[in-house]
Structures are given as C-alpha cells and as structure tokens.
C-alpha cells in the first residue's frame, strides 16, 4: 500500500492579467501623432488633398459604426443608410433654423439617436438575416417619408442654405469636422469596448443565450449599440452633406450602397477588431481612388472580394495579422501570463 502525498503546492505567484503592452503604448502614441499630424494638414498641404481625406474620414467612421453593430453586438444591419440620410436631412432643418453646420452635426446626431431609440423596438423584433432586411425596409420607409417634404427638396435633393462663405476656410472646417467625427467613432468604439458594456457585448456576439443566462442584459446592450451606431452614422451623414454642400438626391444618400460599403470595409479589414474597419476603409479609399473610373466592374470586384475574404480570410486583413502576431493598437482583450 502506497501513501499518496499531496503534490507540493505550486509557486504561489498569481498569474498576471494584463491588457496591451509596450507595443500598445507605441500604437496609442502613434495614433495620437497621426491624428495631430492630420489635424495640422490644412496648414501644410493644398486644400484638394484634405478634401479627399474628408471622404476617408467619414468612411472610417461608417465602418467603425457597422463594426460595432455587427462585429461586437452581432446585429448585421443593411439599413444604416436610414441614419446617414436622416443625418444629412436633419442638418438642413437645423441649418435652416440658423445653427451652423459644425455645431449642427453634433445636434443632428443627438436627434437621430432619439429617433433610433423607438426604431430599435421595431427592428429588434427580427434577428439574423431578417434583422438585416428589416433594417433595410425601415431605411426605405424613412426615405419614402422624407421625399414627401417639399421643404427638404422632395425627390430632387437640395443644398445647404447657410455655409461658411470663404472656400479655403470652409474646406478646412469641413476637414476638421470630418476628422473629429472619425476620431470620435474610433476612439469611442475603443472606449465602449474597454468598458463593462464592451465585455457584455462580446459575450452577446459569441452567444447571446449564454450571455443572457449569465446575467447580461442582452437587449439593453444591443439597444445602446444600435442607438450609438445610429448617432455615429448620422454624424457621418452630416459630414457627407457638409462636404458636398447638400444632397444631390435622396436615393443616393438613402442608398443601400452605403451598407454595401460598410460591409465591404469591415469584412476586408477585419470584423470584430477596432483597427480592422480603419484598415478596411483605407483599402476601400485607395481602391475607389484608383479604380472607380473603371465603372461598374469595380463594384463586381468589391462583391467578389467580399465573398473571397469572408470564405478564405474570415478574420480580414488586420484580424489575420493581429491573430498571428498578437499585436493590437487598441487592445480590448485581457491576456493571462502565467
């Protein structure tokens, strides 16, 4: 008969749990440097360069919002154009009442958040693909109602009534506005994800039933994100409107192609990472800049790329890189080092 002795207790040092690391400190510093450099650009380069970057800024903001919805809260929306369009159109309304377009953008995103709140009760009746199409129908309804207002230009779009007169100043202001919206979208996403809500969201995305059984208020978390993403898209819509001094046609600003764009950018860049949408937006921006003149084929390529990436590189460009190297500019997950 042998006497079993209890194994000697292991070294008692607690495993260290941490988030980020030296690379991250570098990454965050890098982000700050990039943002500051971008903010200084109107003093350094010709205004046609910044005019192009406005587009990049709102693309990043849109992609971040769609990523928040789909990549973190598990809600694939095909109807964010409802809020982009509402953002642009409500900007007409507040601008007509004498508010300048820059403050107006802030007011408009708050207003759209108020509109999105009741809408979420409608959209949340559906889930999965039916949610996607439900949000699309809601966007169509919003468009069909907006075009019934003659004061908003009815079916033919309209222009902003009160904008900064000096073109150089106007371009610089527009660019800064776009930059602020982009920074708010990316850093806001990061802040949300590091919070308790962020943890809940990732649980919801992975398995909402399990998350619910552990005491996560699933519907509340989803609703907060739905409303936040609506406000973000409205701000982007207002930027689009300011940038082109109005809306060319309601069908364009309420077009489902914005959803297509968001899907593409997020899938290419890497869904469910903070950095992915930024990478995806830059990729799309370059693709658009150099290939948009090749016409419709380029949209075919966009569609094909979305299929190929979601089948063979499901983590996207950034996600694959981050998975291989463990690097993150905006670390959300905790790492345990034993």
């Amino acid at each position: 008969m042998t006497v079993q002795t209890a194994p000697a207790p292991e070294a008692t040092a607690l495993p260290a749990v941490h988030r980020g690391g030296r690379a991250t400190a570098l990454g965050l510093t890098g982000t700050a440097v990039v943002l500051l450099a971008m903010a200084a650009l109107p003093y350094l380069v010709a205004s046609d360069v910044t005019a192009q970057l406005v587009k990049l800024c709102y693309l990043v903001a849109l992609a971040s919002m769609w990523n928040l919805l789909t990549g973190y809260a598990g809600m694939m929306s095909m109807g964010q154009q409802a809020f982009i369009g509402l953002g642009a159109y409500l900007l007409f309304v507040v601008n007509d009442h004498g508010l300048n377009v820059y403050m107006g953008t802030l007011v408009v995103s708050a207003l759209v958040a108020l509109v999105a709140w009741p809408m979420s009760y409608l959209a949340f009746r559906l889930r999965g693909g039916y949610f996607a199409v439900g949000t699309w129908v809601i966007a169509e309804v919003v468009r069909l109602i907006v075009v019934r207002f003659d004061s908003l230009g009815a079916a033919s779009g309209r222009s902003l009534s009160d904008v900064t007169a000096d073109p150089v100043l106007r371009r610089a202001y527009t660019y800064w506005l776009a930059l602020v919206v982009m920074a708010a979208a990316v850093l806001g996403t990061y802040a949300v994800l590091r919070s308790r809500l962020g943890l809940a969201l990732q649980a919801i995305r992975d398995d909402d039933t399990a998350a619910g059984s552990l005491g996560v208020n699933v519907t509340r978390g989803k609703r907060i994100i739905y409303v936040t993403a609506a406000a973000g898209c409205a701000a982007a819509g207002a930027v689009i409107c300011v940038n082109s001094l109005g809306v060319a046609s309601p069908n364009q600003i309420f077009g489902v192609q914005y959803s297509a764009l968001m899907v593409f950018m997020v899938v290419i860049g890497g869904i469910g990472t903070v950095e992915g949408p930024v990478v995806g937006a830059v990729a799309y921006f370059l693709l658009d800049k150099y290939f948009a003149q090749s016409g419709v084929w380029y949209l075919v390529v966009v569609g094909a790329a979305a299929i190929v990436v979601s089948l063979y590189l499901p983590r996207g460009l950034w996600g694959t890189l981050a998975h291989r190297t463990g690097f993150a500019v905006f670390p959300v997950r905790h790492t345990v080092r034993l």
Partner: protein
Amino acid sequence: MTWVNAIVQGMLLGGIFAMAAAGLSLIFGVMRIANLAHGDLMILGGYVASVAAAHYGVPVPLTVLVSMTAVGALGYLVQRSMLDRAMGLGELAPMLVTFGISLIIPNVLVQVFSNDAQPLSTGSLGTASIDLGGGLAVGWFPLITVAAAVAVLTALHLFLHRTQPGRIVRATADDRTTVRLMGVDNRRVYALTSVIAFATVALAGSLYTMRQGGVTPYEGQLTVLFAFETVIIGGLGSLWGTLAGGMVLGIAQSVGAQISPDLPLLAGHLVFLLILVFRPQGLFGRSVLA
C-alpha cells in the same frame, strides 16, 4: 368598385411575391441562411428568360424552363463552392457571401445589357382579360401567375411531406448531425435545397418579367424586400402563410397605388411594419421573435 378592383389586382400581384418568397423560406428553413441575393437571383431569372427569347429564339413559354434550369444549376454551384464552406464559418459568413452575390449580379447585368429595360413580351396573352362585369376585369396572365404560385407551393408541400427526399430535407432542417449519423450526406441535401430554391425564384423572376413586359438590372433591390416581407408577413415555416403573405403585400401595394400613385411602396412597407409590431410571428407561422 375601384377598391374591389385594387384588391383583386393586389391578390394577383401577390402570387408572384409568394413564389419568390417560397425559395427564400426554404433556404432559411433548411440551412438557416437568409439569402440577401434572392431578389437579384429573381431578376437574373428574368434576364435569362428574356435573353433566351430575344437572342436564341426560344418560344416565350419555354423560356421559363430555360431560366429555371440555368439559375437552378447556378444554385448548385453556389451551394457547393461557397455556401457549404461559409456555413462552417459561423452565422455571418453565409450572409456575407449572399451579399457579395447580390452586388455582383446587378452590376454584371448593367455591364452586359446596360441600364435599359430588357423586354420580354407575352404578346396577346399579356393584354387579354376576362370581364367579370361591373367594370371588373381580370387579366389572363396575372391569373396564370397565381395559378403557377399555387402549383409551386403545392408541389413543394407534397415534395417535403410525401416523398423520401423531401422527408430527408425536413430531417436535415431539424437536426443535421443526426441525419449524418443515418448515412445521409447533408451537403447533398443542401445542394438539392438550393437548386429547388434557385429554380423557383427563377420561375418567379421570369413571370415577373413577363408581367412587367421587361426587367432592369437593379430591380433586385426592390424584389428582395418584397420576398422577405412576404415571408415575415406570412410567417416563417408555413408555405400557405407565404401565399397569404404575398397576397397581403400585393393588396397593400395596389390599394396604396389606388390612393396615390406614389404610395404603393410605402403602403407595402408600412403594412409589413404593422404586422411586425402586432403579429411578429406572422399570420400563419412560428415565431421569429428575438
């Protein structure tokens, strides 16, 4: 009498919606994929029929079969080459794949056939109608589409409930792991399901094109909404609900058009949203509640 007429015309329109929705409902029921390309596949079906008639001289009634065969074969390819793989990657990947397809189809169509409508005429049948008296007339062609819808839904019902392959499809929908244990390759079941779904949507698209007299590339963005609305109004998992859903949507649109010519779309969408609020499980179906 104009209102009765609007309702009758709406019911006739609903037949097409129901046919388009049947395939959507089938794919979702068996594979849990919400096919975002469904509307564009319908339009593609219309194009195949129209091109077969215009460029290859196929008699118009037979173009329907050409379209069903071609799009059905496409369904097989899409399922085997993309969706099977996507289904193993989670819930989002299949949706993204169908989304990619929905971007490719209309833009290829524009590139090849331009933005102009691609005509497909049914000749005298398109205008012939039966006079019911009292200013009420029912077109022969819309009547045929409703009959076709009823036939398609009946055939699907009989296939799923009375035949061995149909039972296997239903069993796979319920529990694919157990079906695999019984020696059935679930991927072949999925391929069969996709072929059926793609072929029925091609039929719907061909008839839709004949009814309209032609088709344009981007119409899929509208028809996909109609198909999804029909499924949800009727209730998931109920074929007869799908028919009722198509009729309700058709009636809403044509009554809306009767009130004002710019209202049909809005009226249809609003009826859909009302159903969503007050009867989210649909008229006849199981719940899709979150």
